[in-house]
């Protein structure tokens, strides 16, 4: 279990099988070493805002990327995204929506409220691994985020 104090990737995924596959896919590219997994939107918000079970975290210690499932129990993915964008501390946190839904309205809504990208999980596992590798590669290695002090 990676230490959640220094997570690079926060994965929000309620289906355990999907989470396991996603972590496995990310691990193949070496992107799961500092990954923290939570199972619902409320836990994700607690983690990012250092509340509840995560009260000992530092709010400014944001992951490099948030992988956010669309359909989640309690607080759904779009709702999480909306709250993150409404708060100055998390406004620029890279958020990748990762979902089964190919519905246009979900995609449009996600971008409208400030998602950085939107990935539809392929049924085929190899394609799924490829998609996850690209996501990890881009957001963990290629993408530059502002200095913590500047955020």
């Amino acid at each position, binding site marked *: 279990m990676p230490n959640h104090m220094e997570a690079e990737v926060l994965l929000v995924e309620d289906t355990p099988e*999907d989470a396991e596959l996603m972590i496995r896919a990310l691990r193949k590219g070496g992107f799961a070493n500092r990954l923290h997994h939570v199972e619902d939107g409320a836990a994700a918000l607690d983690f990012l805002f250092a509340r509840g079970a995560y009260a000992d975290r530092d709010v400014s210690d944001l992951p490099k990327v948030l992988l956010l499932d669309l359909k989640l129990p309690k607080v759904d993915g779009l709702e999480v995204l909306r709250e993150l964008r409404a708060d100055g501390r998390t406004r620029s946190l890279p958020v990748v929506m990762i979902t*089964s*839904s190919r519905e246009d309205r979900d995609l449009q809504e996600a971008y409208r409220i400030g998602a950085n990208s939107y990935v539809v999980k392929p*049924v*085929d*596992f190899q394609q*799924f691994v490829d998609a996850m590798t690209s996501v990890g590669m881009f957001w963990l290695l290629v993408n530059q985020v502002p200095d913590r002090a500047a955020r």
Partner: protein
Amino acid sequence: VNEREGRQRLRFLLDALAEAIYTVDADGRCTFCNTACLDLLGFDRMEQVVGRSMHELMHQGRADATAEAACPICRSHRCDERVHVDDATLWRADGSSFAAECWAHPLTWHGPTVIAAVVTFLDVTRRREAEEESLRLNLELEARVCDRTAQLESANRELEAFSYSVSHDLRAPLRAIDGFAEILAADHSQQLGDEGLRVLGVIRRNVGKMGHLIDGLLQFSRLGRKDIHAELVDMGALASSVLEELVTQETERHIETRVGDLPPVAGDPVLLHQVWMNLLGNAVKYSGRRRDAVVQVDASESGGEVVYTVRDNGVGFDMTYVDKVFGVFQRLHKESEFPGTGLGLALVQRIVARHHGRVWAESVVDEGAAFHFALPGIRSEVD
């Protein structure tokens, strides 16, 4: 004698009419009325009517009376006007009323001044009732259409919710099956052995197939809801580029392609691309066994529409089943011979129908097939 006989004959004729007729003098008093007039007004003899003011007697001469000066029928003897009133209410001797249509003609035989008028009228109660009934039925029909529309809209919303959950909920377990089968293959191949791996391969292939079916079904249902973004589409360029792309993928075959002169059309370029993709894709697929495969596209214009035709010299199909080719999940060939989901032509039909066009096909087994689709021509759009 002759004149008396003439009067009698005239009287006989007037009494035989179904239409009521009466005449008035310059004061609006009755000078004559026929039998139909007596019957309609509920009198027995002409003497009961002659000499009396017709306005007072029958035309709104009741409590809510219109003044004679304002009565349109009286304008004929007062103002020398021809009058037609199709919604008059006339009163009978017993105080009951009926709907009537009246015509009044001023008579000016004896010079320019009006000395009398002749008025004819009909009881139009039944016609009025029929009109009211038809109005009522129309309103009822409209209300029913509203009801049905609301039902349809709610069915559509349900369908939307359904396809939404199909997209999310059915794909998720499939992904898990495929993913964990892959894990089994990758991490436990030693224990599985060759036969175990083969069986696992079958599972994964079928997962993939089901994934395609779900995607196709979703695409199909989404089409029904998608708005058509019509613009001028260069069908020649579109068909050529699709065909070229398809032929390039067939690296181990030679396919001869012929694209004729294809007129442009007004339509949604994304959807029309899909039509060409499916029709040309089929032509390439079903001509797969021919060494001299030919895929041909041409068009003709007639009766304000453009008919596009895709022809191949492939295996074709039995015309007995022509009704099935455009059905959802209908296939005329075995999966092992020619893979497919059975949705391609159903999609084509749906897209063309949404463009107010039509599709049809003909074929001879082992000689080839021709698929036609007709779309409204641009010139007819302008008209």
